């Protein structure tokens, strides 16, 4: 792989030789559709864990055979994974924020604009300023949009008072500031939606790490999880940890006991459940139901569920065959919506597209997910599986999960693994951050 990376210098030279076209468009904006392109064009929308990985692998392995563009309006990406560590005070924001310089140096053309529409017949992506990008293959990795309307009284504006913190960045910072400002003895309410949503164990990891912060800084405070569901990922492991580390601090109300939040009042700072119970909150962390990012809707890729159906072996859209959908926006069968899953799917998509456009060999799709949840200092658990494409959906094989009652040594090892994984996957997504 090192050899290939060093070959990118040649790629860069070749790209510059591609000509005045690139230089001109750099000066005046971005390319209008060019039909007679010498090289097949791949456009990737979304620079998160899925999209950035896909662009990187296409550029890395595709060499000079493909033109790869990444449409991402943000110049930097703050990872949702590990943002709970920021809330706990264990990480600062720069340590979970990454740029795209390494992708650019691989030859990826960065388009720092918002994609406004897709014309699957003309095979163009229209940008917010009216410019258009032509593609031979399009990859859409838009992540999630929040369905504010699912909760009465909740809105993008209300989220400035009752943050969701489910897209890392300003919302995460806002939530941390509220935690710091909250008086000791306050109540931190987390509203959790039904599945599917981004990162199934994350609300419970968040409860654990906020509890960790409270035990140090505000030990009389309480955490109330109001859940639309009756069970959750790694439940026995979380409950064991809450009993061991944070006894009496965390209460979980399942859907069967009226836990689902149906309304909020950002002025009165109350959260109302389907059962009619009204809870006063010092901080309300309201995570609403979710759906595929907007551009997936505009491209006509979503079904009635709000997510995108895909072909299990290739992540190609069931609705538009020249478009691949990966990451949280896709209905990926047994795979959860996670950065690890998106990274894994991106490699399959990159391999498939290279095969289709350059004639390189394709191999049977292999997917993987592994997910760590941090519980306390030196205590973490993990879950994972391999996945294979079935005829209708992606199916899991060889699942594994940490066990209740594991030794402290095992948990310390798992906690250390999580940090090693963060370094590895962010290097996989954004390119090496170390020179």
């Amino acid at each position, binding site marked *: 792989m090192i050899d290939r990376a060093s070959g990118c210098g040649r790629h860069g030279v070749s790209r510059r030789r591609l000509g005045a076209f690139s230089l001109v468009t750099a000066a005046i904006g971005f390319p209008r559709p060019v039909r007679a392109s010498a090289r097949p064009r791949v456009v990737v929308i979304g620079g998160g864990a899925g999209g950035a990985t896909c662009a990187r692998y296409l550029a890395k392995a595709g060499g000079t055979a493909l033109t790869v563009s990444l449409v991402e309006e943000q110049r930097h990406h703050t990872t949702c994974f590990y943002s709970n560590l920021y809330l706990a005070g264990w990480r600062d924001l720069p340590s979970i924020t990454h740029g795209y310089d390494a992708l650019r140096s691989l030859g990826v053309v960065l388009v720092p604009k918002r994609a406004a529409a897709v014309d699957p017949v003309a095979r163009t992506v229209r940008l917010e300023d009216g410019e258009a990008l032509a593609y031979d293959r399009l990859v859409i990795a838009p992540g999630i949009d929040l369905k504010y309307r699912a909760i009465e009284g909740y809105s993008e504006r209300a989220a400035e008072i009752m943050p969701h913190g489910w897209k890392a960045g300003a919302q995460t910072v806002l939530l941390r500031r509220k935690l710091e400002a909250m008086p000791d003895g306050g109540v931190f309410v987390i509203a959790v939606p039904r599945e599917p949503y981004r990162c199934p164990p994350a609300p419970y990891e968040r409860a654990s790490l906020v509890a960790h912060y409270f035990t140090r800084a505000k030990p009389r405070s309480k955490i109330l999880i109001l859940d639309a569901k009756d069970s959750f990922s790694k439940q026995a492991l979380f409950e064991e940890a809450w009993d061991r580390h944070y006894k009496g601090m965390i209460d979980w109300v399942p859907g069967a006991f009226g836990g689902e939040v149906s309304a909020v009042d950002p002025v009165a700072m109350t959260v109302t459940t389907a059962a009619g119970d009204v809870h006063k909150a010092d901080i309300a962390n309201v995570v609403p139901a979710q759906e595929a990012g907007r551009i997936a809707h505009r491209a006509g890729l979503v079904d009635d569920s709000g997510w995108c159906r895909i072909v299990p072996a290739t992540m190609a859209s069931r609705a538009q065959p020249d478009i691949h959908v990966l990451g949280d926006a896709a209905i990926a069968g047994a795979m959860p919506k996670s950065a690890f899953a998106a990274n894994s799917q991106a490699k399959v998509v990159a391999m498939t597209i290279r095969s289709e456009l350059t004639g390189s060999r394709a191999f049977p799709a292999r997917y993987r997910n592994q997910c760590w949840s941090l519980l306390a200092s030196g205590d973490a658990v993990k879950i994972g*599986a391999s996945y294979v494409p079935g005829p209708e959906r992606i199916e899991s094989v060889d699942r594994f999960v940490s066990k209740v009652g594991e030794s402290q040594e095992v948990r310390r090892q798992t906690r250390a693994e999580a940090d*090693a994984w963060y370094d590895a996957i962010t290097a996989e997504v954004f390119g090496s951050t170390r020179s």
Partner: protein
Amino acid sequence: MEGQNRRHGQPDGRCHVTFRLTGRAQRRCRTFGVVAHATGGNAVDCGAGIAADAGYSEYLAAECATFHRSEHSDGTVPPLGATPYPSLVAALKEYRSGVREGAAMRSVARTPGGAGIEALAAYLSGRP
């Protein structure tokens, strides 16, 4: 390339990969003309036909890179490329058989098959 007219599941003898499950999870790896039997519905082993392809080793190695850095290991997670070929093959096969503890690595090592493990180990260890 005229690639846009070629779609998945319409093999033209080139680069397509399709899975067909019949009976008890028999998977046909049509691309390479090799039939693989998935034991217990789990392992997918398309045999030496794929394993001989350097691209396949690179593809498998990409899966490892999500967790194993190629450099700068602090000792928690072994870096890629640091283990000699014989040790790496032995370790992966021991994970696969369950002789060696490690649920995550067992899950990883089960699916490529024996030939896939050897190809992957050769690629990672830089063996020519």
